[in-house]
Structure formats: C-alpha cells, structure tokens
C-alpha cells in the first residue's frame, strides 16, 4: 500500500498524517488522530454513523480515503458547534434529549448540519429525505425530526410530546 503524507484541515486546525493513501478517513480520525467521536457502524456506507462534513457536505468517512479528504475542510462531531447550524442542533439535541444509546448521534448531528446548511427551512419530507441515510438502531427518529425543526426555528411538532 502506498504511504503518503496528507495535510488535513480538521475543525479548522491543520494536521498532517503519514499513512496509507487508501486508509479511510474514519480510521485515520479514530486510530491516528485519536478523535473517536466519529463512529464505525458498517464500514460500507450503509449506516451513516461515520458521517463527517467535507466542505459542508455530509460524507461517509468510512468510504472516503484519507487521500481524498486532503485539501478539504473537514468537520467532525468534536468541532460541530463551530458552525452556527451545528451549535443550534447540538443545543436542541441536549434540550430534548435525543440520544438513547447515543452511538449514531454524531453522524445524525453532522447529517442534520449539512441539511440545514443546504436548506435552512426544510419541510418534513426534506428532513426525512436528508436524514434517511443515517440509521438509528434505537429509533430515536421522532426526536431527530423534532430537534431539527426546533433548530431551524420551525413550529414544534407534537409527535414526541407526552
């Protein structure tokens, strides 16, 4: 495997890593940069647990070789609140206690951030479509919808209420 030195910008900080060019960004983050917030769920692009932002777009870091991430602005859960959309979402995530086990939530928050960056006032259908690639095995989906609506300052929904 070809080794290389890669200059990455993660959460606005420059970092450089020497590693295999095809090692997925997910494992570079977790193993080499000791940033375990980004999660491994399937390694096959099917669950979204590993979602990070690349120049504001949600990508699956398990499917993104480190070489492809070099030169782009990477945002992970550890730096999500530096974006105003991320900060609002995180506030709502805490206020309504979205997580159950919590394992999927880093990926959910970053997908939601990408959604609001692209579409500040998404409809219910747009929220579902934007979040459909992120599995939550605990099925916290009603609260994910609600947190996104609240972060986007849309009318609260009753679906989660007692």
């Amino acid at each position: 495997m070809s080794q290389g030195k890669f200059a990455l910008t993660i959460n606005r900080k420059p970092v450089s890593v020497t590693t295999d060019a095809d090692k997925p960004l997910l494992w570079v983050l977790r193993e080499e940069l000791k940033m375990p917030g980004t999660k491994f769920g399937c390694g096959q692009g099917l669950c979204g647990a590993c979602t990070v932002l690349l120049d504001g777009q949600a990508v699956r870091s398990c499917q993104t070789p480190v070489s492809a991430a070099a030169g782009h602005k990477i945002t992970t859960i550890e730096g999500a609140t530096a974006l105003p959309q991320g900060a609002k979402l995180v506030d709502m995530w805490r206020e309504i206690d979205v997580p159950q086990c919590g394992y999927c939530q880093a990926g959910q928050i970053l997908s939601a951030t990408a959604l609001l960056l692209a579409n500040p006032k998404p409809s219910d259908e747009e929220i579902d479509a934007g979040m459909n690639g992120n599995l939550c095995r605990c099925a916290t989906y009603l609260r994910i919808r609600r947190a996104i609506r609240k972060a986007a300052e849309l009318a609260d929904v009753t679906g989660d209420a007692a």
Partner: protein
Amino acid sequence: MSAVIDRRGFMAASLVGAGALAFEARIALAETPGAVPLNAFIRIGADNKVIIGSKNPEIGQGIRTMLPMLIAEELDLSWDQVVIEPTLANDKIYGVQSAGGSNSTPNNWLPMRQVGAAARAMILSAAAKEWGVGAASLTTAAGKVSHAASGRTAPYAAFARGAAGETAPDLAKVALKDPSRFSIIGQSKIGVDTVAITQGKPLFGIDVDMPGLIHGAIIKAPAHGATIASHDAGTALKRKGVIAVVPVNSNSVAPGKFDTLVVVADSWWTAKNAREAVKVTWDDAAQQGFSTEAYDKGAAAAFAAGPQIAHAKNGDVAKALAGAAKTITADYSYPFLAHGTLEPQNCTGRWADGKLEIWAPSQAPNNGRNDTAAMLGIKGEDITIHQTRIGGGFGRRLINDYMVMVAQVAKALPGKPVKILFDRTDDLRHDYYRPAGWHRFTAGLDAKGDLVAFRDHFVSFGKDGKPIRAAEMSPFEFPVNVLADSEIGITYLPTNLATGWLRAPTSNAVSFVYQSFMDEIAQAAGIDLPELMRRTLGAPRDLAVVPGRPVLHSGRARAVIEGVCKMANWQGGKLTPGPKGEKRGRGFGFYFSHRGYFAEVVDITITEGNNVRVDKVWACGDIGSQIINPINARHQVQGAVNEGLGQGMVEQKIEQVKGVVQAESFGDFPLIRIEQVPREIAVQFLKTDYPPTGLGEPSLPPVIPALANAIFAATGQRLRQLPLKLA
C-alpha cells in the same frame, strides 16, 4: 446473587472508581479532588458535589441516569450537585448488574433508595455529633443539613469525614420517603451522557484507548459450531503491523477446540485487511445440512405429523372443537433475527501478572467474568471489569463471546492491552439470533361467538426435547390459560445456529402470532379485537401463576385496553380512505410481558406501489405506581414501537445456506429508517397501585400484531408471516 445490596457491599467504599481509566473518570475525578467515600456508591466532594456510582450497564435504556435518581432522592440532593459515574462490574459488591428482562427497575427500586437513605442517616448522625444536637432535630434538603432551632445550615461536605466513620444502618430497616415528597423521582432528567455524546467524547467500548493498545479483527467459522481444522498465518504475519494470529474459542465449541482466529495488528484497519492473507480450513461437515429451506420443510413435516410434546393440556380440545359452531385454522411464522446493534461487538483486555483487566460493553458483565474465568482457568476475582457505555444492546450483549475471546488473546500476548472489534458482517453472521418459529392454530367458537376451544402447535428449535436458548414459550400463554379446553403442543427442530434473547424475547414473536390470530377470531365472531379481549380476559383477577414468573392481572390488562381505545377514539379498524382514495386501516394489539401491560393502536395508509405507511401509533401502558424518569420513559416506548414496526415492515430476516448465515450488512439486513417511522407516537401511562416495573421491553410486542391487524383492516389481506409483505 440477590438483588439486595448487603452491608459489605455498601461499605466497600474504595471500589467506586478504583483503577478507573481517564476515559471513565472524565467527569468525576478531575472535578472533585479529595472526595470522601461514604460507601460503595457515594462520594462527597469538598465542593459538595456528590459522586454517585451507577452500577448497571447502560445500553440506551437510561439506567445510568435512573439508578442515581433513586439514590439522590433519598439522600436529599439537588440534581445539579450530582455527578454520575459507572461502577466496576462486581456482583459481590453491587448485586445483580445486568441489563436484561426489564428487571433493573423492579430489582433496584427499593435497594437504591435504601442506599441513599442510609447515607443520609450517616450524614445526619455525623452532623448531630458535630453540632451537639439530636439527629432528630436536623433536616436535610438540597445537599445541606439544617438545624432550625439554632438557624445553622451546612453542606453535606462539612460532615463527609464524620459520616464515613459512622456505622451504616441496616438497609432493610432504614426509613424511606413517602412518594408525595419526591422531588427527583418523577421529574424528567436528561441522560447523564447526553452532553458528552453530542461532543463526541469517548464513552463506548469501541472508544477505549490506552498507551500501547493493539487491535484484533476476527475470522470466525462461517458455519456456527464449526471449528478450525488447520490454518496458516505465515503470509499475514509478514505484513507490516501484524503482530500475531491467535486461535480462540468463542465459548460456543467444545473445550480445547477453536472456532475463531484473531488477527492482531497495530491498527484495526491493518488487522482487518490482513485477514485475507490467513488460510484456514474448517471442520464443518456437521453443519452443512442446516438451512432456512430445511427448517421450512421441517416445520411443514412437523405440522403434518403433529406435536412431539404436549406442552399445555387443559380439558378436551378435540371434543370442544367437534362441538364448536365455527372453527378457524391458520399457520403463522417468523424468521430468525439478528440484533444489529449499531456499535459492533468489541471488548478490550489486558493480561499482566496472572490477572486480567477488561473494558467491556456487556449487558451481563459478571456472567462474562464467570465465562472468562472458566475459559482461562483462573479465578473470577482475578478479573477486573470496567463498564463502558454500550452502543445498543437489545439482548445481544447478554452473551459475552467478545470478552471470552479477548481474554484469550490478552493472555497469549501478556502485558499488551488488546481490543477486538467485529466488522459489520462478523456482527450479523455471528450473532445469537432470535429463533424462528411456526404456529399452527385451531380455534372454536360457540353459537354465541364466544371462544371455547384453542390449539397451538408450535414448531421451534431444541435438542433432546428441550428448547434451546430463547426458543421456549409459556404453557400459560393467553388465552390458553383462561380456556377450559385448550392446548399447546411443540415440535423442536435441530439447528446449528446460536440463539439468544432479542428485546422482549419470545414475546416479540408470540405477541405477533397470538394477537393476529385473536384478531382473526374476533372477525369470525363479528366483533373487534378489544371486545374479544375484554370478553376473554373476563373479570379482574390474577391469571396464570407460572412458577417464578410474573402474574397477568386481567383487570390491569383491561384498563390499558380501555385506555388506548379512549386515546385513539377506537371505533373498529375501518378508516375513511385518504385524500387520493388510498386505503387506510387501524389495528389493535395488547401484550403483557416483563411485568408490563401495553395496548397499542396503529393507523396506516397503503401508499403507491402497495407500500404501508404508518401514520400514527398510540400506546397505553401500566408499569406500576411511579414513572421514575418521564422523558426517558416516553422515549423508551417510542423506540420500542419503532423497533417493532421495523420487525414488521422492513425486510428483516436472517437466512441460512449450508449452515452459514447469509446477511452481510444493512443492505440485506435492513433496519427501520426515518422515512418509515410514524409522525406521531402518543404515549400514556396508567398509574396503578403496584411497585414500579421495567420499560425496556414490554411496549414492543403489541405493536407488531397491531400493524398486521391494521393491514388486514385496510386491505383484507391477513399477513401471517414476518416480515409482513402485501401481495
């Protein structure tokens, strides 16, 4: 181990947080220097923060938040002074520490409160001595002691050292608060780790890290039960970063045999890739004959031959059926299911000086200690187990194969901390599956339309006339337990698959078949299912005293049935079509499991392409006198309802060819996604005069038949097989 915390455990002060790694101690230790331990659960900091040890595994059910609420309530703390940290797994100190059977609430409701009340009593006696007044003249609130007569008030911290020297009162005799005085119990508390989760902090087993950590990827026999015939790791070991290839026994093959190779490297990515360079031949002749097709044939043959075993036999069903005005028969079935926890199975271990240290995302860590000690031939007390947060359990992590395996690797590589991690395919193919099952029903109605005869031939998996793990069913299943003429017969088929408990085990499947068939009976009787349930449950009384099992009280059952009918304004299953003429329907289901009563109603629309869209679900439950953490209770029900809908609607099934599970990932073993869940799940709890019971499981089972019954109401199609598929 009894659920009761004994005095020795209560006083084993030094064990909370002992040896905790930085990742576990992230909140507590740093912020509370010089905290004084009062007992195994409680330390008081100089800043009057109170660190409460939370003893049970957290899988997303909220227990890590809830158990400290019980302690804090009786200790009279304000919630914002509480700092929660997980305890070690050690049942000698903490009693039962497992996340299973929805048992944590009933088992800890009193003991955890007693721990808090006893600590409060110790603080009071220390304060009384310090101030030279009678303990009875002191009051407590928000972590402070007050003496009204002299106007003195001081934080608990002022008496912590004194309190630590006091003799602990008898836990069983310590006075507890009257519920009317609760100020923490019954108030919604956000999850203890919610903030850390949104910060991406290391919390989970997969996040465990420490200097020198090495990583293992597994190669497990594709056919369950097969063993390694021979292997050659030569090429793999030449790869850069690869450290060792260690044969281990996952605890499912005979002692001395191995069924798994662990490829160990300096990174998991390297280890995972190096697996392709390992050559292995398997001894799997005995597993070749097992397949989904063979099971289906076996079930058909069993139905033709009749049951092997009379499981329940009341009266004379044959005679009652012969005399019935109407008989109904139907065959139902459901597949094997994997758990698909989003965090794949993993575990970290380190062997040094004849002792083992483990960091485990396990739902039953003390069982893991026993299994591991037996496998390594060491003493249980030579194993220290740290509990990590767990990225989903659902019963998968009641089995400790990952702990047993990592222990063998750690022992083979002494001094080196090692973490093993399954990839997604490993995780789906080497699960302990919810067993498949088949039911052939016959029921008889009399001329009035009352249910008078009931027969179930259940085909399941077993050996030597006994069910394998999680493949059993109760001989007192409703309505068998209320009818004079009723029976259950069983045939057990062989399988090589390892089976296990999936959230609401047995109930998740049995509820679907029983409540769907009851809906068929109701249709035949010209009534609806809630009405049939009312009639069949009869007068309020205790039903079916199964030794060692909870009792179903028909009055509580009827109350939640009335409750959900009111919530949903139930008028039967017919709904007016949607705006574009779409067919719509409504279904009902009731189930009692894990001491909890739930009745649920599901509204659906049949959308373009013959797809089912779930519009709304109503759930009415009775889990006793107190909802301890209301926000979490609601979330548990919503999660369980969505999970049940997933089992019904999504193409979820585990299939097997030549002994080997075929599922590879979330493509062929899908989980329910956000687009598929309803807009609204309304939840209501009926408070009754019974001790509080658990909520992880009982709200799941009824939603599956409610969905199937709604599909029938909308389309006239009776779907008798999971996953549900419209023709």
